[in-house]
């Protein structure tokens, strides 16, 4: 297969899957090594964007998936039934951002950072499949630990957790940015 053919097959595969397809699966199905496929998909991502195609490829944890473009939102929504997308509350978003950076993390740790109970936020996030119970901490009481899901990455347009913007951990920097404000 030449590159054009490979791109064509990948396009067909991503279309049929609907869901995300891992690099591993693509490599297996097409019998081409993962690094070659990754390179080709990256080319595809670029050209889809340059050509302003109606579909884009999003990458999450080495899996790929088609999606529509956010800017076509209003047309798409007119075609498909408007999805009940109640957004996330401020409390849920705060809880989510703490879990994202500190995972794996227990409820008590989240509570202590936020200064309030986070129980209902956590269960909302679990319902929305943004967070999951990743097991229990080997500590007294064996508390449940929480991590973010791949769905979280997808919904927030992140390829992986390494793509989270760095937090300003250095307190001097915080102080400096304080002064600017």
């Amino acid at each position, binding site marked *: 297969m030449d590159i054009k053919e490979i791109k064509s097959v990948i396009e067909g595969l991503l279309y049929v899957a609907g869901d995300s397809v891992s690099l591993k699966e693509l490599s297996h199905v097409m019998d081409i090594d993962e690094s070659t496929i990754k390179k080709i998909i990256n080319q595809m991502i670029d050209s889809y964007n340059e050509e302003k195609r109606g579909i884009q490829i999003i990458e999450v944890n080495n899996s790929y998936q088609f999606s529509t473009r956010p800017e076509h*939102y209003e047309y798409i929504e007119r075609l498909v039934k408007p999805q009940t997308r109640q957004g996330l509350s401020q409390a849920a978003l705060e809880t989510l951002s703490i879990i994202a*950076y500190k995972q794996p993390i227990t409820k008590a740790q989240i509570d202590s950072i936020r200064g309030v109970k986070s129980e209902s936020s956590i269960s909302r996030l679990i319902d929305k499949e943004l967070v999951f119970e990743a097991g229990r901490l080997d500590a007294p009481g064996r508390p449940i630990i929480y991590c973010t899901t791949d769905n979280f990455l997808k919904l927030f347009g992140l390829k992986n957790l390494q793509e989270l913007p760095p937090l300003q951990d250095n307190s001097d920097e915080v*102080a400096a940015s304080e002064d600017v404000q």
Partner: protein
Amino acid sequence: MSLSVKLEMFEGPLDLLLHLIEKAEVDIYDIPIAEITQQYLEYLDLMQEMDLEVASEFLVMAATLVEIKSKMLLPKPKKEDNSEPDIDPREELVQKLIEYKKYKEFTLLLKDKFEIYEKVFYKNPEPIEDYISEFTSITGVTADLLARTLSDIIKNNSTKSKRVYRQIFRETYTVDDKIKEITKMLVSKSNFYFEELFEDTCDKYEIIVTFLATLEMVKRRMIIVEQYMNFDKILIKRRKMSI
């Protein structure tokens, strides 16, 4: 003093405190604790006036603020040596506020991203009943995989038992010996189960040799062997008695 804070909902005491500090345009590392405590308490009063439920966390924070305030009013003990710097009573609170602020800022960023990506749609996977039945949960398991899995199990077991063989003298059991043993047993009993030939501690090699002996005896028409179904117990019967 007029309350400059609009009545709005805060996510928690830290959220409210951060708001007050930003409003007052003061350095987070040098919070004018008396002033901020005053405003914080006024806000709680306002909440109560509006019949809003004041969560216990807000009250705990109020107590903490008052405690810090009183500590700061106490005269500092004069120390001769400068080796140990005084611990600022606000220190712990400041650290908490900074930590919380980090995530609060990130929350805004998350919110922006979320607003973009919630406008993205995905197509459903193609219906592929032709290929897979409703039990999609076993996708990926093929008959070949089954065969390989069982072969692996068998392989692992056989490598385990090979090690056992090496520890045992191969000549310990012979088919002839076992034939004698079975014959001897049939003198006292007209029939018995194959299993009865073994002690609990016997090894696979012994079972195999005994089994071979049994087959040999069937072939020589010395015994009759009965088994009702696969894996059932094997009954060994004296041939003469079977009539």
